[in-house]
Structure formats: C-alpha cells, structure tokens
C-alpha cells in the first residue's frame, strides 16, 4: 500500500512536469496550427539558462525560473519570427507542403541541440538546490523539491488560466487561436499574438526544464525523451486543450510508473508511447472529451 503511494507520488511529480511541457505544445498547436518537434530542445535551453542564472549569477531558485522563462521566451519569439513564420504564413494544413513544418521542426531540434552543445558542452551538469529535509509520511519520503515542482506547476497553470481568461491580451490570444481571420478583422495584431503565444509556450517549457533540473540534472540530450512524453501527455489530454495537457501529463506519469512497478520495469519508456498510440488510434480528440481541433 505504501509502495503504491510511493509510485503514485513519483508518477505525479514527473507527470506535472510532462504536463507543463505539454501545455506549451498544446498552446503552440492552438495558436500556430503546428506540432512543434523542437520543443524538447527549448525545454533543454530553459534548463541550461536556469542553471546559468542560478549558479553563475547566484540568483535565487525561483528567480532563476523566472529569468530562464523570460530569456527562453524571447529566444522562442526570435525562432518563430525568423524561421517558422515563413512556413506558417504559407498556410497550415498538412498536405505535402505542411510536411515542411514537421521536417523544419526536426531540423531545428538538431540545430538547437548542437548550439547548446557548443555553448555548454556535452556533460551533464548538476543543479543542486537545497530545499532542506524531505517530508516524511509514514515510510514514504517526500523530498521538498517534488512539492516545489507540484506547486510551481499549479502556479503556472493558474497563471496561464488567469492570463487567458481575465486579461485583454489573453482574450486576444484565444481569439487568434480560434480563428485568425476574424481576429484580424477585430483589429488584433495577429502576427504579434502568434509570436506571443510561441514565446509563452517556450517560457513554460523553460520553467519545466528548471524545475526538473534538481531531479535529473541538466544535459544537452535531455530534451528528446521529455518531448516524447509531453507529446503523449498532450495527445492523451486532447491536443489544444490546456487543462487536458496537465491531466494528460499526470496520467502519463502515473501510467508509466505503475507500469514500471507492476508490469515490467525495463519497458518503462514504452508505456508512454503505448498510451500515445492507443489514444491516437481510438480517441484522437483525447481522453477528456474536451473540444479539440483535429486537423484534416
């Protein structure tokens, strides 16, 4: 019983991080109509930037998260403006031309990874943050970093919710996500909003990177596996649904940890893919029945 609780805790703590990254992927999907295959590398950049702020400039951890978010967000905006804009402007849809966006994403991921390697080297970097002694619930230890991760995820989620529902810019973002032409006709600067959406999504990924730093250390190659899990989370929750992304993340995290615990530990990383494929095959709109844009 306690073991089960332990597995659940692990599932939830990693799941919220999947969820945060999935949140960004979902946001980009709603805003730009693209699936961003280089998002794992954005997450990695965020983690490294957080490390730079925390250790080279000695800013406190929470401020490092914020700084990393801002810088990564700006980086995302530059990438979107310079590269993706030319493709998305040519029209969405996933015909032969739309395939370009996917290939471009893969290329960008290779480029970003190489740049990060040239800047920070290939070795993993520790991200020690002293949170103090873990909480103890019976036999279960609950490190404070897990609690911090969960709290940060909730704050991000809440912040994004307030931003989208309560602010004027948030309203405009939603308008752009739903229909760009009408948003344009309402006087909304759609290109700017698209950049903003992309920037916010990248900033969120950076937050996830900094949050996971203390747990898994920071390395140039960290993005790929996270990206796959986050894709699974986004699909499970319903692409384009923001609460769905977080729920999907939790589900993927718990599913893979329980699978590893009770089915076979060696196949842990396959469970997320399994979930991804099953959901895609039988319920492409996601498990939670939220309205999702399924592109034809």
């Amino acid at each position, binding site marked *: 019983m306690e073991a089960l609780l332990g597995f659940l805790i692990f599932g939830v703590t990693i799941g919220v991080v999947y969820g945060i990254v999935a949140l960004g992927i979902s946001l980009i999907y709603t805003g730009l109509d693209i699936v961003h295959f280089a998002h794992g590398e954005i997450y990695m950049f965020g983690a490294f930037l957080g490390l730079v702020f925390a250790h080279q400039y000695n800013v406190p951890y929470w401020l490092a998260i914020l700084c990393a978010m801002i810088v990564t967000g700006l980086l995302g905006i530059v990438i979107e403006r310079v590269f993706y804009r030319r493709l998305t402007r040519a029209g969405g849809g996933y015909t032969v031309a739309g395939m370009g966006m996917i290939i471009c994403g893969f290329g960008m991921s290779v480029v970003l990874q190489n740049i990060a390697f040239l800047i920070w080297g290939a070795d993993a970097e520790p991200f020690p943050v002293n949170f103090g002694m873990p909480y103890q619930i019976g036999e279960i230890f609950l490190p404070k970093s897990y609690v911090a991760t969960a709290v940060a995820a909730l704050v991000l989620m809440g912040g994004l919710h307030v931003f989208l529902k309560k602010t*004027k810019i948030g*309203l*405009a973002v*939603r*308008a752009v996500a*739903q*229909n760009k*032409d*009408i*948003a*344009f*006709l*309402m*006087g*909304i*600067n*759609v290109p700017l909003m698209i950049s903003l959406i992309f920037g916010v999504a990248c900033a969120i990924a950076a937050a996830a990177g900094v949050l996971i730093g203390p747990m898994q250390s920071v390395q140039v190659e960290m993005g790929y596996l996270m990206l796959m899990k986050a894709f699974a989370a986004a699909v499970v929750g319903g692409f384009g649904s923001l609460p769905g992304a977080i729920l999907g993340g939790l589900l993927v995290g718990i599913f893979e940890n329980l699978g590893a615990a009770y089915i076979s530990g060696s196949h842990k990383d396959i469970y997320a893919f399994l979930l991804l494929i099953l959901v895609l095959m039988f319920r492409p709109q996601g498990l939670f029945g939220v*309205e999702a844009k399924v592109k034809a």
Partner: protein
Amino acid sequence: MLEVRDLQTGYGRIKILDGVNVSVAGGSIVTVLGGNGTGKSTLLKALSGLIPVWDGEILFDGESIANLRPDRIVNRGLIQVTQGKEAYPAMTVEENLMVGAFTRSDKQGIRRDLDKVYDYFPALQERRRQLSGTLSGGEVQMLVIGRGLMANPRMLMLDEPSAALAPQVVLNIFANVYRISQSGVTILLVEQNVRMALLLAGYGYIIRDGRVLIEGPAEELSGDESVKLSYLGGTVASREQMSS
C-alpha cells in the same frame, strides 16, 4: 468616405476581381449585390486587408488603405462584420463582444457601447454568460454585428447578414442595421437577398465575374426586374423566401 478604384485582386494566381469601382458616401447605406462566386466576399477581404491588392486603389477618408495590415485598417474605423457562422464558439457572448473592443482602451466607452449593443439586441444580454456555440443562427448574427459595433466603427461592412436565416429574424436584423446607420455609422452591405438589401440601401452595385455590371440608386435597381432575373443567381429562391 470609401473610394475603390480599379481594384484587382484574387487568390494565388487566380484573378477574382478585375477592376472594380465602388464609392460609399459618409452616413449612407450602400449595397453590393451578386450571386455566389461573383467576388463579393473577395471585395470585402481586400477592403479589410486579408488578401493583398494587386492593382488599383482603396481610399478611406482620402487616404490609401490598400495592402495595410488588417489591424491597422480596423484602427481607422473600417470594420468588417463576418458571416454569422463565424463567431468564437468556445467563448461566451460577452467575451466575443469584448474581442471586438480589443483596439480600444477607454473603459467607459466600451461599457457604454456594450450597453448600446444590448439595447439593439436584447437577446444577447440574456445570454451574455453562455458560450456562443449554443446560440441560434440569428443570435449569432446579432452577436457578430454587435462585435463589430464594439470596435466603435465609423464604417461597417456587413457580409451577408441574412444568409440562411428565417425572414422574421432577417427583418429584425435589418431593422437594427437601419438604426445603426441612423446613429451615424456608414454601412456597406454585401448581400444576395436583393429585395431586402435594396429596400434598406440608398445606392446599389451589382457585380458579376469580377466587375461592376450595373450600378444606380436603389429604387431604380429594384424596379429593374430584368436585372434580378438575368444576373442574380439565386434570386428565384430569395423571392420565394420573401413571399412566404
């Protein structure tokens, strides 16, 4: 107020409009008529900057607005109201209206205009907290007109407000369009419903195959039975609709 001279545009390499001339005087209601695929919607898209203008001129208040970005055109007070089916279904009615007021920052003015819209269309006030996806067709049409009004327009361009609506509803909407016009907003009405449009408007253009075919004061055009029968696709259906 609006001057369109020799407008040429299209999609990709296909030319849709081949030299259109339209002129709208301030405070008036002008209608552009034509059947499906004659280029009416293309004209509106070019006017609001959604598609590039290839050649010709668009003057709004004497200044060229051709190939400006849509949000810049909106800032000048030229607002297009899209067809009824294009609201934001996942937003509430009031959120939809607030999107219309995006360019404005005067809270008082927005509040006042919101009340004005609710005054025009009381049905919207009742449903202000509902998702607009749950509204009826007529209500959505009211919503998108209201959304256009929220931008505090000087000129409103309506794209087929009567499309696929019951006659009673159409009447209500047209009555309100008239009230809006009386409040000092210039109206450019693009329609298939010839009879209704010509009743409302003071001047009309009939376009076909990307050119203005006939133009003239509304009374003259509505008298010209041959115009309707020969050149307006779908007139028979709309006449039946009228008579029912």
